[in-house]
C-alpha cells in the first residue's frame, strides 16, 4: 500500500511528465483497445460529405461522408507499432554497438565509429524516400526495421561516450578490483547509470520514427495500405481538403492526433528523468 502510494507520488512528482504519461496511455488504449469498441466506418455516404462534428460523428465526416473519429481510432495502431518497433530497434543497436565500441576499443571501435560517421553523412530522409520505393512498405515491421536500422548512429556515439566516461568512474574501478566480472560491471554498474538516458532516447527515437513514417506516407512514397493517420493525411491532402472551410476537421484530425501523441511522448521524457534518479526516488 505504502509502496503504491510512493509510486504514485513519484509519478506525479513532475506534472508535465505525468500529463505526458496519461497522454501516452490514452493513445495506446485508443489504438489497441479502441478498435474493438468503435467499428471502422467504410460506407460512402454521398449526402453526408464534410459534416461538422455531431453526436453521431464526433469528429465530423470525410470527403466520402465516412466517420472521421472511427478512422482516427483505427489509424493509430500502425503508427504506434512502427514508432515503438523502430525506437526499440535503433536504441538496441545503439546500446549494443555503443557499449561494444567503448569496451572493446581498438579496431572494433574504429570500425563502428567510421560506420556511424558514414551513415550520419548520408541524408536520412532522401535515402528513406528512395528506400521506400525499393522495398514495398505495406509491411509495418519492415518499415520499422528500415527506420530503426538507419537511425542508430547519433545515439551510438552518445552511448559510447557515456560508457567511456562511466568506465573510468571510480565505482567501476572498485568493481574491477573486487573481481565482480564483466557481466556485473555492464549490467549492474554501468547500465543503471545510463537507464534514464537510454529511456529518454528511446522516446526520441520513437518521435523521429513517427516523423519519418508519416512524412513518407504523406508524400505518397509508401504505397497506401490499411488505415493509419499518415494515409488519412495524404488522402485529405490529395483531395484538396486544406482548401475548404468545411473540410477543416478532415485534415486537422490526423494532424492533431499525430501532434498530440508526439507531445505526450516528449512530455513523458521529463518524468523518465526522475523515475530513474535515485536522488528523487528517495526524496518523494
Amino acid at each position, binding site marked *: 500500500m505504502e509502496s503504491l502510494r510512493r509510486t504514485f507520488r513519484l509519478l506525479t512528482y513532475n506534472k508535465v511528465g505525468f500529463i505526458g504519461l496519461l497522454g501516452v496511455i490514452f493513445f495506446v488504449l485508443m489504438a489497441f483497445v479502441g478498435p474493438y469498441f468503435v467499428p471502422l466506418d467504410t460506407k460512402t455516404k454521398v449526402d453526408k460529405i464534410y459534416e461538422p462534428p455531431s453526436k453521431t460523428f464526433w469528429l465530423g465526416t470525410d470527403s466520402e461522408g465516412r466517420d472521421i473519429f472511427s478512422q482516427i481510432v483505427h489509424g493509430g495502431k500502425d503508427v504506434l507499432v512502427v514508432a515503438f518497433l523502430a525506437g526499440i530497434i535503433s536504441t538496441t543497436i545503439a546500446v549494443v554497438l555503443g557499449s561494444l565500441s567503448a569496451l572493446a576499443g581498438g579496431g572494433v571501435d574504429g570500425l563502428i565509429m567510421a560506420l556511424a560517421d558514414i551513415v550520419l553523412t548520408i541524408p536520412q530522409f532522401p535515402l528513406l524516400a528512395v528506400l521506400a520505393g525499393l522495398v514495398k512498405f505495406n509491411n509495418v515491421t519492415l518499415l520499422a526495421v528500415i527506420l530503426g536500422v538507419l537511425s542508430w548512429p547519433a545515439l551510438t556515439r552518445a552511448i559510447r561516450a557515456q560508457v567511456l566516461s562511466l568506465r573510468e568512474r571510480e565505482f567501476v574501478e*572498485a568493481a574491477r578490483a573486487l573481481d565482480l*566480472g564483466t557481466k556485473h560491471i555492464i549490467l549492474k554498474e554501468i547500465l543503471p547509470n545510463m537507464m534514464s538516458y537510454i529511456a529518454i532516447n528511446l522516446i526520441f527515437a520513437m518521435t523521429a520514427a513517427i516523423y519519418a513514417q508519416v512524412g513518407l506516407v504523406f508524400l505518397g512514397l509508401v504505397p497506401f495500405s490499411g488505415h493509419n493517420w499518415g494515409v488519412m493525411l495524404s488522402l485529405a491532402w490529395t483531395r484538396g481538403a486544406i482548401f475548404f472551410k468545411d473540410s477543416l476537421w478532415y485534415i486537422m484530425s490526423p494532424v492533431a492526433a499525430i501532434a498530440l501523441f508526439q507531445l505526450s511522448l516528449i512530455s513523458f521524457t521529463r518524468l523518465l528523468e526522475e523515475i530513474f534518479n535515485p536522488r528523487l526516488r528517495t526524496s518523494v
Partner: protein
Amino acid sequence: MSTQEAQELLSLHHVVMEFKVSRRATVRVLDDVSFSVKEGEILCLVGESGCGKTTSGKIAAGLLQPTSGEVRFRGQNVWTADKATFRQYRRGVQIIHQDPYASLNPTQRVEDILSAPLLRHKIARNRREAHQQVLDLLRTVDLTPPEDFIKKYPHQLSGGQRQRVSIARALTLRPQFLVADEAVSMLDVSIRVSLLQLLERLRDQMGVAYLFITHDLAVAKYFAWEGRIAVMYLGRIVEIGPTPQIINNPQHPYTRALLSALPEADPKATRSKQRVHLRSLDVPSLLNVPRGCSFHPRCPLFEEGLCDGKVPELHAASNGVQVACHLNENEKVAA
C-alpha cells in the same frame, strides 16, 4: 619496527608506464619505479599532482598493466601468472578512492554495494548470510547502528560516511593489502583523523598492509610514522626510507623543498621555517622531461655537467634512506 620476519607481500620491479596522448605522442608517467611492501607494512607515496603516485597505486592494485616491469604478489609475477594466482592477487589487493562522491555507484543501496562481492565470491552462501556479514562490516567501519545505513543510497550519506562504506567494500574480500589513494584528502579536518584511525585499527586487527598515497606530508608522517615514505617526482622515486628519517632528515633536494614549503598549523613553527628557494617555479611537462635528473632545472644545488647529464639512480645514503641524487652520491664518495 619488528617486521624482520614479515614476508614480502607486494612489489613493483622497474615498472614503466606509458600512455598514448595522441596518434604519435606517448607520455611516460612512470619511469623505472620499484618498491616493495611487506605484510602489515605501511608505505606512503607522496608527491605533487602528476608525479605518478596515483598511477603507481593503480598498477599496484592491478587496475593497470604496466608497459614494462613486473608486479609481484607474494613473489609471483601477477601478469604472467596463471588465472588462479591472478585471482588471488586481485582479491588480496583492494583500493580506496579519493572522492567519496564518485566511488560509490549512485544507483545502488549500501547493502547492494557490500553484498555483491560477498555473494559473487561465495563468502556468503545466501542473501541472509550476506545481510549478516554486511551488518558486521558496517560495524567494523563504525557505521552504527548498521541497520540505519544498510538501506540507504550513497547520496543520503555524508562524505565521511560514504568513505566508510568505501572502506567496508574494500574489506569484503578480506584483503591483505589496501591501496588508499588520497583516501582522506577530500574530507573535512574534523573527520579526517577518525578515518585515519580506522585505517590504522584495521592494520592492527587484520594485519592489512597499506600503500597510502597522499600529497600531504603531514598526513603521511602521522599515518606512516612506523612505516616508510617514498617521494616521487615526475614519474620517478627520488627518495625512499623510514618515515622519521624522511621527515626529519631528508636527503633529496626535492624532499627538502617540499618539507620546507609546507605551511603548518602552528604559527611559530611555520613562520620560522627555513625555506628552500627553487631556481624555477615551473613544473616541467611530462611530454618534455628534462635530461638527466628531472629536478635539475629547479634544484637549488644544481651543478652543470653533472645533474643534466645522467639520470641519478637510487642508492643508499648514510641514514638508511635511499636517494636518487648525484650530489649525495658525491658527498658519500668524499666522506
